[in-house]
């Protein structure tokens, strides 16, 4: 294995293209684990942390929040200017790993790994964020829906690097992220749920609901959104129980447990988002 620490994005892209089997190393909290277990055997690691000057930022511009891919989870947790519309990002950061993991792990790495239960996957999906990629042919921007292809599979070409995320800040909106896990501390989600609410008028709410670790990739469930908008929680529970089909290879809980949990988690997440909308 070789180690590279490129000083520019262009150089990083070139190294990735030149070395077949090279992998991007950001915080290392997934790569190092998979390398040790033998799940991956990279020919080279391309450590992109020297690009922090370019890719580690959180900026508010007009009606969007821009987050650089090398922003650490600790950065998100402690950023004092996080708009209330996207409090779900803080919810996700708070339960993410432990102090030591949050210090290293980056939001870009969390998404690039394309784990179906990643904290920021469902969070960014519910927030209708886009992911920005840079490669040899320039830049492109994808919706989160188009980015996740399956377990561990992201819509990324060889030589592409995630540079950042753009999150819309809708007026009169709120959000919440919750997960079910075995213990409150250092753990991964059994399943997770992220919801964004927007006030349309006095009676109508627009709901976006994303679920993690219930399928091979984080998913939005439009039927559940409609039922949540009517506050038909029993309907949501029935729908998710009837329609979810978690993988038999599910980690951390049996598929049946996930089907039973999903509706309850959606109700709890919705209620907190609703409180935040009022507050």
């Amino acid at each position, binding site marked *: 294995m070789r180690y590279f620490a490129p000083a520019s994005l262009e150089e990083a892209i070139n190294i990735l293209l030149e070395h077949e089997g090279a992998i991007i190393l950001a915080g290392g909290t997934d790569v190092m684990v998979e390398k040790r277990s033998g799940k991956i055997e990279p020919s080279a690691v391309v450590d992109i942390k020297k690009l922090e000057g370019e890719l580690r930022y959180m900026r508010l511009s007009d009606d969007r929040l821009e987050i650089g891919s090398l922003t650490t989870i600790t950065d998100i947790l402690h950023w004092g200017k996080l708009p209330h519309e996207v409090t779900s990002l803080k919810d996700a950061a708070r339960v993410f790993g432990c102090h030591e*993991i949050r210090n*290293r792990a980056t939001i870009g790495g969390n998404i690039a790994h394309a784990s179906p239960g990643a904290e920021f996957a469902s969070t960014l999906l519910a927030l209708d964020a886009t992911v920005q990629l840079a490669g040899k042919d320039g830049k492109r921007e994808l919706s989160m829906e188009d980015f996740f292809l399956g377990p561990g599979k992201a819509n990324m070409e060889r030589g592409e690097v995630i540079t950042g995320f753009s999150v819309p800040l809708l007026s009169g909106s709120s959000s919440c992220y919750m997960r079910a896990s075995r213990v409150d501390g250092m753990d991964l989600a059994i399943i997770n749920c992220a919801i964004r609410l927007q006030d349309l008028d006095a009676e109508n709410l627009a709901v976006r609901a994303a679920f993690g670790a219930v399928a091979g990739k984080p998913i939005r469930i439009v039927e559940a959104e409609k039922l949540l908008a009517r506050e038909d929680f029993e309907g949501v529970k029935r729908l998710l129980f009837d329609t979810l089909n978690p993988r038999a290879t599910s980690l951390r809980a049996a598929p049946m447990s996930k089907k039973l949990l999903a509706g309850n988690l959606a109700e709890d997440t919705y209620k907190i988002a609703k409180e935040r909308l009022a507050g």
Partner: protein
Amino acid sequence: MKEYTKELNITVKVNGREYHESVPANMTLLQFLRNKLLLTGTKEGCGIGECGACTVVMNGKTVTSCLVLAAEADGAEIRTIEGEAKGEKLTALQESFIKYHGEQCGFCTPGMIMSAQNLLDRNPKPTREEIVEAISGNLCRCTGYEPIIKAIEAVAEKGNR
């Protein structure tokens, strides 16, 4: 085709002393500390960032050194358990761990001390919740955590170091 692991040169400051070493590209910071520098106070527990036994401070922040490549530490400042006591003189936190029986088998203790000391450096008067949160990445299978929390609380009340 499997490529030989390339060696590279790094400069790293550990507990105030600068080292220039050649390391294989796939060597972790934990392996570097233990096998190259023979600083064996830092322990390997799980090796996948879940137990916190290998916690060290890197550029002011705690990290699990099993998840960091030695190459990534080039130019960094590292603090390990060996840098805590000054000769025979233990830190207030180490004394407190002894007083409150914060260690039994001792395997988690170096990582636990690094996490707790880093908390006290950032926040000299942490609440119980902040203490519990700060050591949530450090597993202890002996004490049940209560004596460890008491040891940290006692230092927080009296003032750090």
